[in-house]
């Protein structure tokens, strides 16, 4: 048993905690979310490089939302999302404990939002090199090529909404795509409607996206849609110095303003 499994076992045996949300080994060496309720199942838990999925989405899941004896095993994506969800009042202080990891692999227990926020401050916020390279590749294209690139990508989207379902920040009980009076977003998955759907989603994530990439990882057709929300995230930082997932009390970038906000395109 490794230290995570031991820790989980202790927590469950103590009776103070009744549920551990973490990762287990899934099909073909993939990691997947798991829900452990019994101490004897603690040995299923894993935590390694394969565990890069953001699982913060489960914290507000109907079935366990009000369970105050839960623990979540959090990677850095999940941690940032917890901070952002806290800022948006979607999760509540004291409703769960977080098990995070120090660089040397030691388990860190985080019990309050303040502690989580402090720990998250020590993490890297920004795109990985590979992600930054993808952004640059697109930004360096001519306008026509960019359009062609996205037109091709959007044409593949089947509107399964796996991206939305796996994004912790897409928690609206009724999404704009579900509004049909008027019908803002087409239900059929044609390129125009798909473009509107992804522009809409990106706009609604401005200042809120923690750049975890989960939406892109979830897409069965492998659309790199995370780049759209990365774009609004990078712009929110550049224009408004707002980085989602860093502060438990920050206001959303598009919900506030400064009189001195500077643009160069309004006549």
């Amino acid at each position, binding site marked *: 048993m490794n230290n995570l499994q031991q820790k989980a076992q202790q927590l469950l045996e103590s009776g103070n905690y009744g549920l551990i949300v973490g990762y287990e080994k899934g099909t073909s060496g993939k990691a997947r979310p798991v829900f452990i309720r019994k101490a004897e199942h603690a040995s299923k838990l894993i935590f390694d490089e394969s565990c890069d999925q953001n699982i913060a989405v489960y914290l507000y899941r109907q079935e366990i939302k009000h369970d105050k004896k839960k623990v979540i095993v959090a990677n850095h994506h999940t941690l940032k999302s917890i901070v952002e969800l806290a800022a948006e009042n979607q999760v509540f202080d004291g409703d769960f404990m977080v098990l995070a990891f120090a660089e040397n692999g030691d388990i860190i227990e985080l019990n309050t939002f303040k502690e989580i926020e402090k720990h998250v401050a020590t993490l890297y916020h920004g795109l990985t090199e590979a992600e930054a390279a993808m952004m640059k590749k697109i930004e360096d294209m001519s*306008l026509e090529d960019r359009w062609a690139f996205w037109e091709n990508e959007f044409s593949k989207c089947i509107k399964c909404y796996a991206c939305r379902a796996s994004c912790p920040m897409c928690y609206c009980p009724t999404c704009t795509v579900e509004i049909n009076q008027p019908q803002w977003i087409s239900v059929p998955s044609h*390129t*125009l409607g798909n473009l509107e759907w992804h522009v809409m989603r990106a706009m609604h994530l401005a200042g809120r996206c923690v750049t975890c990439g989960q939406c892109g990882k979830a897409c069965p057709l492998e659309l790199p849609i995370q780049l*759209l929300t990365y774009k609004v995230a990078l712009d929110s930082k550049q224009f408004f110095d707002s980085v989602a997932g860093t502060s438990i009390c920050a206001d959303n970038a598009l919900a506030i*303003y400064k009189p001195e906000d500077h643009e160069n395109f309004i006549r």
Partner: protein
Amino acid sequence: METNNTNSFEPKVVAFVCNWCTYAGADLTGTSRIKYATNVKIIRFPCTGRIDFMLLMKAFANGADGIIISGCHPNDCHYTSGNFHARRRWMIFRNLLDFIGMDVNRIVFSWVSAAEGAKWAEVVNESVDQFRQLGPATAYQKLIKNSEFQEVE
């Protein structure tokens, strides 16, 4: 870039304006008998803060070649801060459109107060010229046709 037919082409333009400043300003343009381009369909909103980006997307989806958005100058908003909020949204939105390869020159943003009848005429005329230069929004029209399940090309 579309350059053909720029002379005969008359762009379809939608203007989203706020009730308190630009709409009143446009009224003044009329009562002052200043002549300006007639391509524009004006849609009046209570405030620029109410002009959701989806409305702009819908204008393009319904065949607009260009869009003008206009409201009160900063600090003049009838509701104090609607235009400040709108400005932030446009900053993000405009860059996002650029990122997906839309020509952001198809959207013109301006502050036109109730007293600036002449500025409104100028904004409209220059925007229409700019849109005429850009030509029809063919890239978008292709998507519209495709969304209607018409054969494309």
